[in-house]
């Protein structure tokens, strides 16, 4: 089964249920948008799937290409092919972008394999050029002193270098001006294809003009309350989240 499959997931933070009975299947090759107002639990879902210890998964299942990721360590989940583009990426002083990505790639090699440095730099520069990141950034500490937009671009650079099976992109559009949004979207679109599934988390429809999703899901208070095609995003934009809220109240 080539998909990111989440079933009846319940996630607690500090003992409080934040994500409740959450079910979603993203087949490989598709882009699904997950929309919802602030505080609805989108980042909680994303970080829990990426193994963050502050988020307790108390019920449900989650698998990546049929492999149960709930039993895996954080680094194992990543090596199994799940990439998380964080809403708020950490700053890592003293660790250069080049060394960081190199370590991440090396971790994916067998013990007797070695990364070809020349090829590595060629690929790195190619992806940096694509995302219009200055090549001098290779020597800069990861995210340290970066603007919001630079951090987001750096996340997408890592995604491009690590070539995951699935990517969860958490509010990659926030903090981006329109030019940066176009560059990042272009970068993501060039990665799209049958070998990559994407869960695109956002609460603005703006991003979806550039990265057109196959499906749109609306999250409210920890659950998916509505799913549909890309038109759903436009409908949301027009009517606002209160519309969903009213519908939920009716149900």
């Amino acid at each position, binding site marked *: 089964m080539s998909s990111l499959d989440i079933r009846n997931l319940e996630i607690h933070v500090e003992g409080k249920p934040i994500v409740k009975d959450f079910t979603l299947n993203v087949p490989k090759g598709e882009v699904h948008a997950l929309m919802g107002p602030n505080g609805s639990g989108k980042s909680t879902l994303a970080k829990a799937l990426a193994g963050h210890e502050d988020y307790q998964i108390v019920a449900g299942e989650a698998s990546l290409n049929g492999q149960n990721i709930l039993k895996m360590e954080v680094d194992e989940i990543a090596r199994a092919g799940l990439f998380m583009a964080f809403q708020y990426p950490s700053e890592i002083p003293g660790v250069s972008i080049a060394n960081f*990505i190199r370590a*991440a790639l090396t971790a994916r090699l067998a013990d007797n394999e070695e990364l070809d440095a020349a090829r590595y730099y060629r690929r790195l520069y190619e992806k940096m050029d694509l995302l219009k990141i200055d090549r001098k950034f290779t020597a800069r500490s990861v995210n340290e002193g970066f603007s919001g937009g630079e951090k987001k671009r750096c996340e997408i650079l890592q995604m491009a270098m690590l070539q995951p099976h699935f990517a969860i992109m958490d509010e990659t559009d926030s903090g981006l001006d329109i030019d940066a949004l176009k560059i990042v979207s272009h970068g993501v679109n060039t990665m799209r294809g049958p070998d990559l599934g994407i869960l695109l988390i956002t609460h603005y429809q703006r991003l979806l003009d550039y990265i057109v999703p196959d499906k749109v899901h609306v999250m409210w208070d920890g659950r998916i309350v509505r799913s549909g095609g890309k038109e759903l995003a436009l409908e949301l934009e027009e009517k606002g989240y209160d519309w969903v809220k009213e519908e939920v109240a009716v149900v």
Partner: protein
Amino acid sequence: MSNASTLERVSAKAAKSITSSEAFQNHLESLENAPKWLIDLKTEQWEQFSSLPMPTPKSEAWRFARTGNLSLDKYQLSSDLTPSEIEDAQKNSHLIESYSGKMVFANDQLVEKKEATASLSQAGLIWAPLAKAINEHGSLLRKFLLTFTPDLGSEKFQALHGALFSNGSFLYVPVGMEVTLPFVAYHEICGHGAAVFPHTLIIADAGAKVHLVDIFQSTGANTKNFACGMASIFAGAGAQVSYQAIQEWNLETLSFHLNSVSAERDADVQTVTVNLGSHQTRSEQHTCLSGPGSNVDNFSLSVPTGNQEVDQRTLQTHKAPSCRSNMLYKNALMDDSRTIFSGLIKVEESAQQTDAYQTNRNLLLNGSAEANSLPGLEILANDVKCSHGATTGELDKEQLYYLLARGITRKKAEELLVFGFFEEVFSHLENDELREHLNSWIGKKFHVDPPTGNPVTNS
């Protein structure tokens, strides 16, 4: 090494502990053609040593430090070196192969020297072993030798150094001369019980630019030794001096490194100290901003493991206006190791427009390691910018998570963060060869592979 020579050496040494006046008399006699001023100076220092008390747990300048292991009776000045000791010392001394000049000392005796180029020497540069410089350049050297000692609690050991030092490197750079490649001095300890007193004296005349690296090592891993070194830097008007000291004595060594920097008008000095070795090391740094507009950075990185103790005492004295000083001491502690950082910024009344910073950051990699911090300020001028701060913490959990979330293994992620912590100091080493050696030494201390080299940005 034959049995006979071992026996001979042992018996020759066993007689005279460095604390005995017999040892001091023998030392004076061993100095060849010593000028009277030196004998007088040494005699005065010996008297001071003899009269000063040993530090006790109650001494304020030794707060938090271990004082139980400071007895010096078991150490001797070493007599002749064996051919194999000379060979070992020379073999150890190839860390930096691009240099302007090199000296190798084994138990304070010069065993190898690479001269500075003739063009530098003809233009007035002096790169000489101190023992020789005392005779040949006495009138210049006397004006500086032992004139500025740190005086931060180790006065007794400082005086012993003054009484018993016999060699080291002397570097004088004449007005306006700029030398790019570093001068490198290796100081090696050989044999059980040997005591060494390496001395480094750098005088950069007005507008000169120079770089010196001191490397302190032992030829054997298990010899019990005592090292009491002093490095003094005098930067003349507008001079630029960069100094690096790598302390890698073996883990049985008790060491003192008592250093000072004096910066004249508009001088720019940067020092980097790296502490890896010694079971106990006391590192004192007194930086004096003596001329207006001068700027001094003192960086330090210590990586104690096991039950090593690194005891750091610093003083930044601002005597002149419009100067900047910055002290950044970083410690990464493993196992049951300990560090002490006690620093003071002193701004005299006349030193207006002072910028002075003092930072101590401790990274605890094990719950039973102990980092002590005593930052301090004493400000008599009213127009100053000063800050001091100390932080102690463990590896950041969110940073670690971020690395793990990229598929990096926990061990490698921790290692990247630790080396990331070092980077703020390492980036000032200005020498790729040295950096690589340090990476591998520290990697060994942590039982990890060193990080791959720094990226080259070829745009």
